[in-house]
């Protein structure tokens, strides 16, 4: 695997004078309608955003994400000076530092902390330096390393979590159905959540298994975070020029013949 050309492995020689300007707007997310989150962020993200599973293009795997908008390019939580949210996901906070492939080695799967050179926040004069004069990582850089290390470790846990959910057949499609004024009903597809009834009626042994790994509380919190679609729609009403007459969350779209899957 190779990084895109703008993603460079952070290196004290290559990035000696590099600084990262802080951006309270997280403007790089202005037109992103979702972001991956880790399992330890479910409570924080779920206090503002709908939390669902999606399948990313060209991937068969489900990913846990926070939703910021209904369609591509739409982020209704974005606000200059600070988002309309009580929390911003970790990988958004660490940007322009990201996890990528180590371009200094031949090992194709070696991951390391990388920097997005295309970001306007990466510069020579303003913000937090990555390395000090002696070439040591600064406190800023260390905190980013730690956060990204956590994200990486958490991803393994999420993988186990999602495997369990698939094994127990607990995932179910979720669609947001929007009825704009004077136009036909539109279905926002491609999201999954947990099947509440199946979860409730899971055999005791499987429930205990989920509980022991702290997966059960994650399930409950993901389910409850669907209520945040109301917040998303409330913000959307203020920010997006679409007059919505009605909307609802459909947890049984599989009843329809052309269900997205």
């Amino acid at each position, binding site marked *: 695997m190779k990084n895109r050309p703008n993603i460079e492995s952070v290196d004290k020689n290559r990035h000696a004078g590099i600084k990262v300007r802080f951006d309270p707007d997280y403007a790089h997310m202005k037109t992103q309608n979702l972001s991956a989150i880790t399992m330890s962020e479910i*409570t*924080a993200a*779920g*206090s*503002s955003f709908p939390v669902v599973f999606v399948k990313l293009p060209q991937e068969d795997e489900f990913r846990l994400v926070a939703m910021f908008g209904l369609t591509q390019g739409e982020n209704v939580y974005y606000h200059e000076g600070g988002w309309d949210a*009580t*929390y911003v996901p970790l990988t958004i906070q660490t940007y322009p530092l990201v996890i990528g492939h180590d371009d200094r080695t031949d090992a194709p799967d070696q991951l390391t902390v990388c920097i997005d050179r295309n970001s306007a926040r990466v510069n020579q004069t303003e913000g937090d330096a990555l390395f000090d004069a002696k070439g040591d990582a600064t406190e800023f850089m260390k905190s980013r390393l730690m956060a990204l290390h956590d994200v990486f470790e958490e991803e393994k846990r999420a993988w186990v979590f999602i495997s369990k959910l698939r094994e127990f057949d607990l995932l179910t499609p979720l669609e947001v159905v929007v009825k704009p004024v004077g136009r036909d009903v539109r279905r926002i597809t491609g999201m999954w959540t947990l099947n509440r009834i199946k979860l*409730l009626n899971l055999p*005791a042994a499987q*429930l*205990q298994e989920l*509980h022991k790994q702290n997966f*059960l*509380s994650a399930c*409950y*919190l993901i*389910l*409850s*975070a669907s*209520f*945040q679609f*109301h*917040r998303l729609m*409330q913000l959307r009403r203020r920010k997006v020029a679409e007059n919505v007459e009605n909307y609802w969350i459909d947890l049984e779209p599989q009843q329809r013949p052309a269900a997205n899957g």
Partner: protein
Amino acid sequence: MKNQDNIETVDNKRHGKLKIKLNVDQAQARDQNLVSVVLTELNACASNFAVVFIEVPESENKRIRPVAVLGLRPGENVYYNEAGWDTTYIPLMVQRYPFIVGFDDRVEDPNQLATCLIRNSPMVVEADGIAMFTETGEETDFLKSRHQILGEIFEGERAMDDFMQRVHKYDLLTPLEIILQAKNGEMRKVTGMYTISMQKLKELGPQVTQELIDVEFLPACYLILGSLFQLHRLMQLRNKQNVDGGLDYRIDVGPQTQPPAAA
């Protein structure tokens, strides 16, 4: 049992001509910093408010109940907004106003409950409002929707009794403190609140855990715990409104005090 003088059972003979003012801002709750939550609305409340346990003032046996936190001092509701609250949900105990579950004052049976009206509420008017009855004396959809809210409160309260009984039985409460620090360094503690102890929840045996799953109380416990994150929303709104000149804050779960004895 009898109602207070200002509480009247809704009746088309008595109230046929009365109207209820549209109440977008729920002005009666403008100065209310805590509001009772019933079990069925936990998800909706926890999506907006921190839900914590408090001792119900002047209650028998120091009754402990979950409430949504709207403000950190008596009289403070930072979610209040004239154009409609800064929330995606308003608790049923606020929505119900000016209706209340009371005794049916038209019958002899002293325990018969009915939808009652807080007669001296400024929302009860003669004109410019929503009718409770049609010209022919039938209940309007509006009044029917009020019956429904009160019914849900009544049912939700009973479910909450059951929930609280098990919370006490398994000793799940732990104290919660919010520590506010003013810009000048002055500290203030907000105390008297409790939450579910994550540790005690984890230490429950498989049998009790299964029992709590079966009655859907385990999700309730986790939702209440997760709702503490909404204290950040409360502080965000509070600082935006510049209450106390803007404060730093810290949330402590389980400080070195003992939870109160079970009711």
